[in-house]
C-alpha cells in the first residue's frame, strides 16, 4: 500500500509546473517603484482575447517596445495609453490602482514569457 502511495506521488510530482510568467506579460517599471507604487503588469493574453493588436499598436499608437512609450498617470488621465480604455467606459477606471500596479518590487521593464524565450534576444 505504502509503495503504491509513493508511486502515485511520484506520478503526481511532475504536475507541479516551474515558476514562470504567462507568455507576453509586460512589466512596466520606468517610474512606478521610484514613486513608491508597485510596478505595472500588462497582460497581453487577457487583452488579445478582447482586442486585436491593431487597436493598441495602430489606433492608440502604442509602440511595440516595452518601456518606450513612457506611460505615466498624467497621460492615462488624459485618455492616452491604458487611459483610452480604463476610463470607466470601455473598461474599469484608473481608480483601481492595484489591478495594474500588481508586480513584485525590483522587476525590470520588459516583456516576459515562458517556454524558453524570455523575450526578444534573451534565451
Amino acid at each position, binding site marked *: *500500500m505504502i509503495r*503504491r*502511495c509513493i508511486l*502515485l*506521488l511520484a*506520478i*503526481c510530482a511532475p*504536475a*507541479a*509546473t516551474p*515558476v*514562470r*510568467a*504567462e*507568455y*507576453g*506579460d509586460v*512589466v512596466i517599471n520606468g517610474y512606478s517603484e521610484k514613486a513608491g507604487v*508597485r510596478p505595472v*503588469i500588462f*497582460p*497581453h*493574453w*487577457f487583452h*488579445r*482575447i*478582447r*482586442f*486585436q*493588436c*491593431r*487597436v493598441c*499598436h*495602430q*489606433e*492608440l499608437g502604442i509602440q*511595440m517596445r516595452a518601456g518606450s512609450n513612457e506611460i505615466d498617470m498624467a497621460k492615462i488621465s488624459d485618455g492616452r495609453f491604458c487611459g*483610452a480604455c480604463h476610463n470607466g467606459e*470601455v473598461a474599469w477606471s484608473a481608480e*483601481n490602482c*492595484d*489591478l*495594474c*500596479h*500588481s*508586480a*513584485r*518590487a525590483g*522587476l525590470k521593464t520588459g*516583456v*516576459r*514569457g*515562458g*517556454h*524558453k*524565450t524570455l*523575450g*526578444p*534576444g534573451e*534565451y
Partner: protein
Amino acid sequence: MARLQRRFVFVALLCAACSVRGAGPWQDLADDGLHDPAGPGIGVLQQPGEALSVLPQDGAGNHVHWVKALRDGFITPRHALADEPPPAIDTTEIIMRDTSTLPFVRFPHRAHTEWLDCTICHDRLFERKVGTTPINMGAILQGKYCGVCHGAVAFPLTECNRCHSVRDVPVAKAAAPP
C-alpha cells in the same frame, strides 16, 4: 483495511489537488514570479488558465493556437475602438527561400492582417516588395523583423516548423529526410 483505504483516499485527493494546480501549462498568478502575492489585486485578477484552457490548444507560448481561436470564433476581439469598417485582409503568401538546410519559410499575410494593420509592418519592419528585406535568423533571434512579435507576444521562436513549413528540399539533394 479501513485505515488503508482512508490513506488511499487521502493520497488520491492530494494528487487531484496537485493536478488541478498544475492543470494545463498555466501558472497561477500568485506564483508566476511577477505578481506580488501580497498585493491586493491578486484575488481579483483572472487566472490565465481559467481563460486560456477553453481555447484551441497549442504547444508553446500561451499554449493557445491564436490563429484557430480567432478563425473558429472562440474569440471575437474588436478591431477598433472607434466605429470603423472591418479592416482589409490580405491573403498573399510569401515563400522565403534563404533558409540554409531548413524548409523554406511561408509568410501568410492572412494570419497577420487578421490581427495587424499593414502600417505596423510596412515599411517600418519590411519592404513592400518580395525579397528586398534582409531578413535572417540571427536578427530574428535578436528581436528584429519577425522577432519583434514572435518570441514576445505571437508564438515563440522555439516553434521552428511553424515558419519553416514548406518542405520542398531547399538545397542540393543531400540526404533529404522523407
